[in-house]
């Protein structure tokens, strides 16, 4: 983690940032009050830094590309289908991209995101440009990601306003015939499972 800590507001060396000091003080208070064990906080941080990330979702997408029965189960009830493979939260909905329809997921009100499938959301997903524009100008947002779709393709925007969570099942790209699940999982990007990217046979 330390290598990510050299920021632009004096977070390094002996000069501690205001936020670093405020957060450290709060952790001291919560610990002194017996509310939290700092080691358990370490474990939460470590979980999201090392165990939960987009590869969880990529594994599911790759399996859906190679196992038609699993794909059918995934689209019918994603939490149930994935629950047979490991832990997943409730209310997960997988939405399938097709030649006719492209799906893109946003949370206009906050930052709802399928954490267990994709890890913590990137900054852009939580920031005003994406949250404001995606529901009004999804093609413009896709252009910011370098994605251009045929003008007749239906675009479906899913605004995550409740505790349902959405995972986009992207289309398997051409040129991947005969690939193993593992090879396929390696080209399933985070953005392709949000709907702001498309998997490429050569990543």
């Amino acid at each position, binding site marked *: 983690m330390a290598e*990510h*800590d050299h920021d632009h507001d004096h977070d390094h060396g002996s000069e501690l940032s205001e936020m670093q000091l405020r957060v450290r003080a709060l952790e001291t208070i919560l610990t002194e009050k017996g509310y939290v064990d700092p080691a358990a*906080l370490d474990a939460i941080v470590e979980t999201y830094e090392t165990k939960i990330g987009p590869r969880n979702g990529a594994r599911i997408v790759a399996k859906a590309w190679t196992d038609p029965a699993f794909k059918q189960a995934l689209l019918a009830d994603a939490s149930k289908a994935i629950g047979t493979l490991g832990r997943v939260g409730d209310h997960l909905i997988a939405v399938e991209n097709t030649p006719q329809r492209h799906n893109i997921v946003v949370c206009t009100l906050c930052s709802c995101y399928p954490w267990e499938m994709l890890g913590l959301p990137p*900054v852009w997903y939580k920031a005003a440009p994406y949250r404001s524009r995606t529901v009004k100008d999804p093609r413009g947002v896709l252009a910011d990601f370098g994605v251009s779709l045929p003008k007749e393709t239906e675009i479906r925007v899913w*605004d995550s306003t409740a505790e349902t969570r959405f995972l986009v099942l992207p289309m398997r790209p051409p040129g991947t015939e005969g690939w193993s699940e593992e090879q396929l999982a390696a080209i399933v990007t985070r953005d392709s499972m949000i709907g702001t990217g498309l998997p490429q046979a050569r990543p």
Partner: protein
Amino acid sequence: MNGVHDMGGMDGFGKVEVEANEPTFHHTWEGRVMAMVRAMGANASLNIDMQRFSRESIPPAVYLAASYYKKWFLGLKSTLIDRNLVGADEFAAGRSLRQSAPLPRGTFEMKDVVRVSTRGSFQRDVATPPAFKPGDRVRTRNINPPTHTRLPRYVRGHAGTIERINGSHVFPDSAAHGHGENPQWLYTVVFSAAELWGAGADPTVKVSVDAFEPYLEPA
């Protein structure tokens, strides 16, 4: 509440800026804030909508200028003060100044970590059948509560179609304010872009929200 957090359809924020190889956290303190929010949420019974409302209530100018985890910190701080879990004087002092009652679920410890790493279920049974079925035309109500709601402004008063029933879930508008779970039927409602943004909108675009039954009336 009609806060600045309700951003759908606003203009002027510019392009989406993507950071290549973005780290999970940009500063060590961000991870600590995330972990404290999860831990206190779990063991102090601060439900997710209470936490959302605390962030929505950050003054708009501060909200827009603050980084994501700074908003989480500010929301957690106000929640802890409001619930007498930490005193404002203790925040100022940077240490605990008095003994506090144990949290409802006790100290957040290692054994609790797995529990907060998987989302719980928000499904709750209700006695009444759903008022709408897939294919029904509905209109979102023109509600403007100063309290927490999950019906974004950009869909209020608009006609859409029920696409699916997502079960009956904890109602955020009640749970955020400690008024109980008050479960309600939850629907995916789809709108055409023209319905939301007017004539000239991209005819290929459809937008859905997940809306609770009290947000809807027959169209």
